[in-house]
């Protein structure tokens, strides 16, 4: 029996890229998991809601060990969306799919508690913020300048660095920056700074009327914002898990 096609419109398929965190476990795996737990205890929720890819290219591992590793990560609420660098024989149905063709992106900073030493060894793909250097400059982040108002429905997405808007950001518009967000105008829409995991990113605006503010995944809605900041020139930054704000004059 053949199926008759009554609706002949073609199906639209689009490509889209997402920035994923890449975890590259190192042997011995038990010790690596302990270090991961330590990291998670200092930045709760770091992996929550973020796509994570497991890179096993440099790991001598068999299928049973890989399954166990995925289980262990699952217990820590780290959900793996794909596995990179694995031999075909490693995979079995029900495992996350094999991924290839990933392009490198800037290292992702892990939010670090003030009293704990840097965790440069936690994972080769993650670097702790270097207290002495300016993190963004050190990594050669770029920036873009937008010279006109950002209108409702528009979004500016720039994971590579800072976004500066000379003009206002409308209600219903959004700015998503890997680095800081600077708005020389009224910020009415959403501003998400440090969106690829940069806790030192900041948000600056000449007049705060924002619908939502986020730095490194920590967010504040309009309702959570102190009323005395509304309409003011403000800068916002992250201290631990809270967004701090102060008026600029």
């Amino acid at each position, binding site marked *: 029996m053949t199926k008759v096609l009554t609706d002949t419109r073609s199906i639209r398929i689009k490509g889209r890229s997402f920035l994923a965190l890449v975890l590259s476990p190192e042997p011995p795996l038990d010790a690596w998991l302990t270090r991961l737990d330590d990291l998670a205890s200092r930045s709760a929720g770091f992996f929550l809601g973020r796509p994570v890819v497991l890179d096993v290219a440099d790991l001598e591992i068999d299928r049973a060990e890989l399954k166990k590793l995925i289980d262990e990560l699952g217990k820590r609420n780290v959900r793996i969306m794909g596995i990179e660098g694995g031999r075909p024989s490693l995979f079995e149905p029900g495992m996350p799919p094999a991924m290839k063709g990933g392009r490198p992106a800037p290292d992702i900073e892990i939010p670090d508690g003030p009293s704990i030493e840097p965790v440069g060894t936690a994972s080769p793909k993650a670097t702790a913020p270097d207290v002495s250097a300016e993190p963004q400059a050190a990594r050669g982040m770029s920036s873009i300048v937008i010279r*006109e*108002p950002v*209108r*409702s*429905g*528009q979004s500016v997405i720039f994971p590579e660095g800072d976004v500066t808007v000379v*003009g*206002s950001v*409308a*209600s*219903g*518009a959004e700015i998503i920056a890997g680095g800081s967000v600077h708005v020389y*105008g*009224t910020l*009415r829409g959403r501003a998400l700074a440090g969106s690829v995991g940069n806790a030192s990113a900041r948000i600056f605006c000449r007049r705060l009327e924002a619908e939502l503010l986020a730095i490194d995944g920590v967010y504040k809605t309009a309702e959570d914002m102190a009323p005395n900041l509304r309409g003011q020139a403000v800068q916002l930054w992250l201290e631990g898990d809270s967004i701090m704000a102060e008026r600029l004059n």
Partner: protein
Amino acid sequence: MAKVIVVTSGKGGVGKTTSTAALGAALAQRNEKTVVVDFDVGLRNLDLVMGAERRVVYDIVNVIQGDAKLPQALIRDKRLDTLFLLPASQTRDKDSLTPEGVEKVMTELKKHFDWIICDSPAGIERGATLAMRHADIAVIVTNPEVSSVRDSDRIIGLLDAKTERAERGERVEKHLLLTRYDQARAERGDMLKVDDVLEILSIPLVGIVPESTDVLKASNLGAPVTLADNRSAPALAYLDAARRIAGETVPMTIPGERRGLLGKLFGRRAA
């Protein structure tokens, strides 16, 4: 040289069709050949406001599909012989307007008219983007309330992205037309202030049209407000707005307020 104007807003019911008819008649009264084009396929009502609903034979979709020639579809106004209407189809679905078809119609209209005014459907979908596609000038119709202002902002973004001019790296000239402005409600603080709307949208103001029963009266008569009673408050506002669009400098007044305070509003440019 023909100028194409799109009258647009995003939101419905703000006064686009009323404004298209009123501005069209006002420009035609300057002795410049003007056509108003209804892009609201399926919900046409520009013909009603123009009082031409019983004279519609062919429409824009017929022209696009080759069932009729453009001159057969154009309806000449009975009061002003420089004013024409190209009606929309009531029965076709929205997809019968194609980009190629619209381009063909526009190219032909440009040969015969000084002003081509496109009445946009509501929304930000295909119908609205086709209506703005060939525009040189956009009249953004906005009511002084939050949802209308936000939709207008959205439309302004599309004007900078989806028009032929934008694709050539040029700009569409934008004018804010505040309509249904109610002085009493403004004083009570029930509506956004003119200043606030201008600050949010940051495009120049071309006119403020008061909320008025004269608009309904005119549409019941089947006449553009500027023809029904050219001394009424909305007619005066539209007549001034048309002169500004045509490049004249006319002082701005807020309906119901004395002059003075308003000098600073006029001629305000995008930040």
